[in-house]
C-alpha cells in the first residue's frame, strides 16, 4: 500500500506556569489510502494530533517531530506560505460543529465557490457548476436553493454535509475529520458517514477519523490507533477492536452500557499509571 502521510516521533508541547505540558508525546504512524481512526478520551491528544499535521497548533504551543511527510515532503520544513497551499488543497479538515466553521454572513454558494476558486483558477460559472455537482455528491436535494441559502437556514446534518462538500472540492489527498458527527443525531450521523465513506473510496483518499466513539470507529474505519495521555497505547484492525488487548481499550469498551447485556453497575475504568509511562506503540503499517 502506498504511504500518503508518514509521521515520526510527533510531540505537541504547551508551556504553562507549572512547566511544559506535553499534549502529544512522541507518536508515530503512517496513513495510506485507508480510513485510519484515532480514538481516545478528552485530553488524550487525539485532536492535537490532527491539528499538528496541518500545523494548526496556536502559539505558545509547539509542534516537534522527526518528520511529518506528505508523499515524501516534510511539512515541518515548509514556510507558512507553502503550508497554506497544502491546507485545503492537499489536506483538508472537517471540524466538529459546522455552525462554527461556516461564515454566517455569506451564502453557502459563495463560500463553496470561494473555497474552490482559492485553489484553482476556475471561472465563476465553472465554480458554480462544480459546487452544484459537489452538493449533489453529498446527497443534498435541491442544490440550487442551498447555494442561495445562509448557514443558519441549514440543519446540523446539512451543515456538516456542506462542510464535507466544501472540503472535498479541491480534491485533497487526505481528509482529517475531527469528531465530524458527534454534534449530529444518530440517524443523520449514519447518512453523513456513508457520504464521507463513498467519497473517500471513490477518490482514493486517505482519511484520518478522530472520534471518542469506539463503536463508531470500529464500524467505520480500517485501522485504529487508541490514544491515552498523549501516547498511542494500542493499534489494531478496526473490525478486531472488540478483541483489543490493552486494559485501557478493554476498560473503555466495558464501561459502555449495552442493550443486549444489562447490568446493575457498569464497569469502571481503573487507570494504571504505567499506561502513560509505557512508550508509544508505532502506528506504522
Amino acid at each position, binding site marked *: 500500500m502506498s504511504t500518503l502521510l508518514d509521521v515520526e516521533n510527533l510531540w505537541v508541547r504547551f508551556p504553562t506556569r507549572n512547566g511544559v505540558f506535553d499534549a502529544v508525546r512522541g507518536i508515530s504512524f503512517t496513513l495510506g489510502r485507508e480510513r485510519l481512526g484515532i480514538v481516545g478520551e478528552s485530553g488524550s491528544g487525539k485532536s492535537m494530533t490532527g491539528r499538528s499535521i496541518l500545523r494548526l497548533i496556536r502559539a505558545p504551543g509547539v509542534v516537534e517531530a522527526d518528520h511529518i511527510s506528505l508523499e515524501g515532503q516534510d511539512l515541518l520544513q515548509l514556510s507558512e506560505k507553502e503550508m497554506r497551499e497544502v491546507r485545503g488543497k492537499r489536506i483538508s479538515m472537517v471540524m466538529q460543529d459546522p455552525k462554527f466553521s461556516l461564515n454566517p454572513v455569506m451564502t453557502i454558494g459563495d463560500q463553496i465557490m470561494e473555497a474552490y476558486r482559492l485553489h484553482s483558477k476556475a471561472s465563476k460559472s465553472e465554480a458554480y457548476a462544480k459546487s452544484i455537482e459537489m452538493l449533489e455528491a453529498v446527497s443534498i436535494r435541491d442544490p440550487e436553493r442551498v447555494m442561495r441559502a445562509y448557514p443558519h437556514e441549514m440543519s446540523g446534518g446539512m451543515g456538516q454535509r456542506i462542510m464535507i462538500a466544501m472540503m472535498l472540492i479541491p480534491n485533497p489527498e487526505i481528509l482529517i475529520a475531527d469528531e465530524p458527527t458527534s454534534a449530529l443525531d444518530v440517524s443523520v450521523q449514519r447518512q453523513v458517514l456513508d457520504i464521507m465513506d463513498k467519497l473517500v473510496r471513490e477518490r482514493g483518499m486517505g482519511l484520518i477519523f478522530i472520534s471518542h466513539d469506539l463503536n463508531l470507529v470500529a464500524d467505520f474505519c480500517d485501522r485504529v490507533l487508541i490514544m491515552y495521555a498523549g501516547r498511542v497505547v494500542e493499534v489494531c484492525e478496526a473490525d478486531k477492536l472488540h478483541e483489543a488487548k490493552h486494559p485501557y481499550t478493554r476498560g473503555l469498551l466495558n464501561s459502555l*452500557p449495552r442493550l443486549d447485556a444489562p447490568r446493575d453497575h457498569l464497569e469502571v*475504568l481503573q487507570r494504571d499509571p504505567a499506561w502513560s509511562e509505557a512508550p508509544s506503540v508505532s502506528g506504522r503499517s
Partner: protein
Amino acid sequence: MNMLEIKQLDVWFGHGHNRVDAVKGAEFSVPEGESFGLVGESGSGKSTILRAITGLAPEWSGGITVNGERLGKQRRKSFYKTVQMVFQDPYASLHPRHSVDQVLGETLALHGFRDIDARVVKLLDDVGLGQKFRFRYPHQLSGGQRQRVAIARALAPEPKLLLLDEPTSALDVSVQAEILNLLVDLRKDRGLTYLMVSHDLSVVGHMCDRLAAMRHGEIVEIMDVAALRGMQAQHAYSQELLQASV
C-alpha cells in the same frame, strides 16, 4: 401513587406567527420510585418537558401533577424541595466564580437548612468527591467532578423527583460509567424517582424502567425496557431509532 403525571401537555415558545410548538399533547405518568426515560432526536421536545415541569419554560397548557399537587403557573418554594434537576453540560451549569463550597452552601441556605457545614461535607461524600474538593473552583475540576457537584447541588434539598437532562452526554465514556453508577446507587439508597432525558438508547436502557420515544414534539410510543432490549418497538419511528443505535 404517581410521583409525576403529565396530561395533554402543550409547550410553546413565542407568539402569533413566531409561535413554535415544542411539545404537543404529551401524556405519561411516573410512579414513585420508577425511572422513566424520554428519548428522541434533538428538537423532539424531550428537554422542553423537563423545563416546563421546573417552570423554566413559562408558556404551557395542560396538566402537570407532582407528588399529588397540581402545578399552576408559579412554582412555590416547597416545589423545589420535591423536584430538582441535573443539567446536561457540567461546564455551563456551575457558576464560574463560585467555589464548590459556595454552590452547595448557598443552595442549603436557600432551603432553610441550619447545619450547613456538616451537610456540605456529607453531600460531597455522598457523590464520591470528598472533603478536598470543597474549596475548589469549577475550573479546577474535571467534567465528571463538575457533574458530581451538580448532582450534589440537586440532592441538597433532599428531593423526591430528580429530572436528569442528558447528564452524561458531555462526558467521556469511562466517566459516564462512573456517573451512571452513582445515579443508580443514589436512586436505590434514597428511593428517588427519575425522569431522564437522553438521545442515547443504551444509556436509557441501562437506567430506566420505562421510556417514551418522542418525535416533533409528540410522544409516539411508550414502552418498557424489556421491549427496548428485545428490539420490539411498535411504532416505525422508535424502530428506526433502535436500528440506528446498535
